[in-house]
């Protein structure tokens, strides 16, 4: 009786296995952690890839929910591109573990950690503890907000796609060259926009912007968060207001997924200060639909705001 039940269960399982469909082979299925990586994968892969980005540009990429619908997407992927540096530590491991997809496990051919060839800032050089807040032990993971790193990510994507689909190697190389040229031209434009504000001191909410601010010559003198991942506290806010007054910082940059109450209160206490909400990722605002537009959008807002607060 029990044995028969077991055999029936096995037979049902076998039938279910046999019914599994073969997915379309034409395009490479690329799944990325964020829309920034998705945009770069689209730039390089063109119509030879089909790209799905899991986290939306307007959500906090540290706190994405590992939804079962994501498991489905990851289970069909030929290539997974992650931000790495523990940005996705809270949600990517369960997705990969439940994906039943050997191709995209860390260490396999179809897993690309985009942080491997880029310039990473804030790598801790001393002992770190969680008393310092939610620190990332292998450096700041918000590295995509710098065009040079965007270029390096695109190179890694080009090489990886060529490895997975050697027949299209020349196609990916040509797409990369085109992206590289457009990025270089845009960088000239962006540098010119930001040139007048070199060395201006600003404040950001979270440590999302070190690469961005370094690239465009702004100096981050403080954060609205007392420590990474720790919500604003009254004592820290008072200190920050005093620091901003002392150092002449008048701009507070906030990500769209943070509450504006505290930044606004700080700006009200510092004469002439302003809050500006920048898009930290592609998709962070409706009009930011690709990697180049991300900088166009942010630098436009930033330079307009800087013009108002500095009078330059």
């Amino acid at each position, binding site marked *: 009786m029990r044995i028969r039940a077991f055999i029936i269960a096995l037979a049902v399982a076998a039938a*279910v296995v046999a019914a599994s469909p073969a997915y379309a082979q034409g395009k490479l299925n690329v799944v990325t952690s964020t829309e920034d990586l998705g945009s770069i994968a689209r730039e390089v892969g063109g119509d030879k890839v089909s790209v799905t980005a899991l986290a939306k540009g307007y959500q906090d990429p540290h706190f994405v929910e*590992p939804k079962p619908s994501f498991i*489905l997407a990851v289970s069909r992927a030929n290539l997974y591109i992650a931000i790495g540096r523990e940005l996705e530590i809270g949600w990517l491991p369960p997705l990969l573990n*439940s994906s*039943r997809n050997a191709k995209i496990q860390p260490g396999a051919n179809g897993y690309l950690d985009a942080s491997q060839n880029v310039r990473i800032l804030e790598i*801790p050089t001393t002992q770190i503890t969680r008393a310092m807040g939610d620190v990332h032990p292998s450096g700041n993971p918000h590295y995509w907000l710098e065009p040079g790193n965007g270029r390096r990510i695109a190179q890694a994507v080009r090489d990886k796609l060529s490895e997975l689909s050697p027949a299209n190697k020349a196609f990916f190389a040509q797409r990369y060259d085109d992206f590289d040229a457009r990025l270089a031209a845009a960088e000239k434009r962006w540098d010119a926009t930001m040139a007048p504000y070199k060395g201006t001191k600003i404040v950001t909410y979270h440590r999302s912007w070190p690469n961005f601010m370094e690239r465009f010559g702004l100096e981050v003198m403080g954060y609205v968060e007392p420590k990474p991942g720790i919500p604003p506290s009254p004592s820290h806010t008072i200190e920050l207001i005093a620091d901003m007054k002392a150092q002449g910082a008048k701009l507070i940059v906030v990500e769209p*997924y943070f509450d504006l109450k505290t930044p606004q209160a700080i700006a009200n206490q510092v004469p002439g200060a302003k809050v500006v909400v920048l898009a930290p990722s592609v998709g962070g605002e409706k009009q930011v639909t690709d990697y180049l537009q991300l900088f166009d959008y942010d630098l436009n807002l930033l330079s307009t705001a800087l013009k108002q607060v500095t009078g330059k």
Partner: protein
Amino acid sequence: MRASYLVVLGLIASVLLGGARPASAQTSEVEALRQEIDALRARLVALEAKVAGAQAAAPSAAAPALPIYGTSSAASKIFNPDIAVIGDFLGAAGRNRVNPSPALEMHEAEASFQAVVDPYARADFFLAFGEEGVEIEEGYLTFGTLPGGLLAKIGKLRAPFGKVNTLHNHALPWSDRPIATNNLVNGEEGIGDAGISVARLIPNPWIFLEATGQVSRGDSGELFRSSRRGDLSYVGRVRGYQDLSESTNVDLGASYARGHNTAGIVNDEDVGRFVTDLWGVDATLRWRPLRRAIYNSFIGRSELLWSRRDQFGGREKAFGYYVSGDYQFGRRWFAGARYDRSERADDASLRDDGGSLLLTYWPSEFSQVRGQYRRTSYAGGENANEFLFQFMFSIGAHGAHPF
């Protein structure tokens, strides 16, 4: 840097020298120099880019090494499993004469060890250190990439019966467990023993659908007891999930479990050979607006449980359920409520009811303080009014956020 000095020196020299020359020769020479400077400048830019590239590449070579310890012997530590310990401290005040819990209790310290075993499997151990000793809460090997899209687990497992049964204490939205699971599904221990589970996604064009089957030895506290090698217990579950929008989703499940119970055991011998069948239906509705995901969310959940327990008096049919809702109203604040009602598995004429109100505060992602007011009306007319509180804290590797 040095190159730019040379360029500047060259410029100054050319201006000084050029001052003594006739105007026409001067312009052409200046032109030539300018071209040369432009050429040098281009080379400088190229060199700078190369240096920047080399600097960027440098950390990547050292990236897998541990940045903190940094000695050569530290390299072997990289294969150590991810280790974390979660402390669960409970307190209770008020009156409960039926099922009193201690005033203060270090209820559990759960140590987890998780790592990849080899290219084929990973292992997860959860050891619970409580006041009664140490227990393997779970310890299993997962084969995640088997042919046919199967996901197999082997070891001691919490069975996939409903929602609450699979959750460890620290992942619960309450400081206790619902009356229905206490009365019908072996309470805190739940259905969980040594076994093999196999799960598969069922491909279909509409929703996420997963079927799981588990065979276990058949020992789960007072619920299932195996007296012979063949007295295995079986658990099956089908789970469906669908995104209703980017911020709202629904999770539905149906579960079944069967195993030999303890009703027929007389003097350590299973003379009755009785079995218990359990049926469960669960539903979870989640809402989390992505733009404000760290500030606001809601989770509503409910489980309905039916028990069919054979015993000497015949078959006892018991039913129980709970309904609960948790609303996050700030980055660190959650308010919740739960309603409980359940008959007892061995005597369905006895029914317990209860209700709870909860407030939870998160100092950070790694600690949590919770207060719970609980009122219980036990079968037989006894009432209990209690205030429960809980401190939870976690150290070590960053675990996955529960979903």
